[in-house]
């Protein structure tokens, strides 16, 4: 999976060795990436987020899906990746 090849620092700096592109994520963005690597799906990630942060599971899920769409556009993630 592409996601596993990314170099992700604890501060949220991301380097894609394949393309040479780099990115920054904020704290919650970093949490999503970590959970994706652990193999969690969007609902589970949203749940984890709402346990840790002041956000409803519904809003969190919407934001997770939005985030996934964005990283898919950057070519960092594919929809089916976590299903495998």
């Amino acid at each position: 999976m592409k996601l596993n090849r990314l170099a992700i620092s604890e501060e949220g700096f991301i380097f894609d060795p394949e393309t040479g592109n780099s990115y920054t994520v904020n704290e919650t963005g970093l949490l999503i990436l970590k959970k994706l690597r652990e193999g969690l799906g969007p609902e589970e990630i949203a749940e984890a987020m709402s346990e840790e942060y002041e956000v409803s599971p519904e809003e969190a899920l919407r934001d997770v899906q939005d985030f996934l769409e964005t990283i898919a556009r950057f070519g960092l993630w594919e929809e089916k990746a976590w299903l495998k």
Partner: protein
Amino acid sequence: MRKPYQKPTILKLQVGFMRDKKSGLSRMVRREIDGVPVRELAERFGSPLFVFSERRLREQFRYLKRLFEGHYPRVEFSWSYKTNYLDAICRIFHQEGATAEVVSDFEYEKARRLGIPGDEIVFNGPYKPKETLRRAVLEGARINVDSMDEILDLEEIARETGEKVRIGLRVNMDTGIYPRWDRFGFNLESGEVLNVARRIAAGGRLEVVGLHCHQGTFILEPEAYGRAAEKLVQLARKLEEEFGWTIEYLDLGGGFPSRNRLKGLYLPPEVAVPPLSEYAERIGRALLSGLPAGDYPLLILETGRALVDEAGFLITTVRTVKRLPDGRRAYVLDAGVNLLFTAFWYHFRVEIEKEIPGPPEPCVLYGPLCMNIDVVEETAYLPPLSRGTRLILSPVGAYNVTQWMQFITYRPRVVLVTEAGKVEVIREAETLEDIVRRENLPEHLR
């Protein structure tokens, strides 16, 4: 204890894409307008909502008045009705000493209705309906003539009344700026003005007592006003010598810019827009050096935008959050180009009602209309916003509440924050009844 939430974001790093987290954020927050919280305004009066500040209106008027009087002894500000003709706004400027500048039958009637006597009205515009023109003559308004046909109309009115009608001549000229507004009045360089003056003198029913020149809008070149003033002074002297008239006023029109960011200008308005003091200085210098000592005609200024723009705000709410195919975030606001006609020309300042964590990202602000042109801002840099977040757009005080459209939806309330900090509705929100009242369904369609 859960941690405060920040929406997840990922940004691709690009060379030259600057993000200054702290200073950028604090500049983008506006919690209140003249001490009244934005949240309270929106909850009490709804969103979208136009908000005007009485304090800013009066302060700006006094500032400009002092500024111009510091450079020329006799200055009159004539409030440009088309810029904002809400009663409350006009009344504030009239209280401060402004006369009224109108360009149509409607605006003339609105000024009279507000209690402005005819002789405190400057009547401009390329089409003055004959009836209104007659009324303006009888009530002693300052009429600035735009065309030969209007001169013929006025001569006819003078014949009826049996009295000489005093008029001003609108002049267009080269002041070194582009585009040149040459469709209004009579051209100076081609000699048209003098020909017209000869014709007026020969007719014997009109008397030229003023000269008027409005160069355009949002003019960023103070020297253009200096040149206009200089040329008007020379023309005035020529008319006085040749025809024995006394030119009592020189009207330099409006067109002074506000601190709004004109599209196509790269620099922020603080840098690109010259301070108004430069305009005052150039005008004052040109007039004082061209006029004989002690003979100072009245200088009339029809400043609109520069007086009112920065006193107006629009509170609007994010109603929908979307992602565009190119990855940018897009927000659908409850106010679009139906309310913000000036969005076609200006980039507004976009502020958020509270601090929102997260890095600013490029995003698009759309209005609520089902039209592709309904874009309030093509590229704003905002942290990720939730549905329901309120934004404050400014400056929007000029032209929006006159050029707004009843299109697709209703027009919202307009409120005034008074100097005492009270909030008064100065225009109610439209209802279905307002719109259908003037319609008629023919019998066979009922």
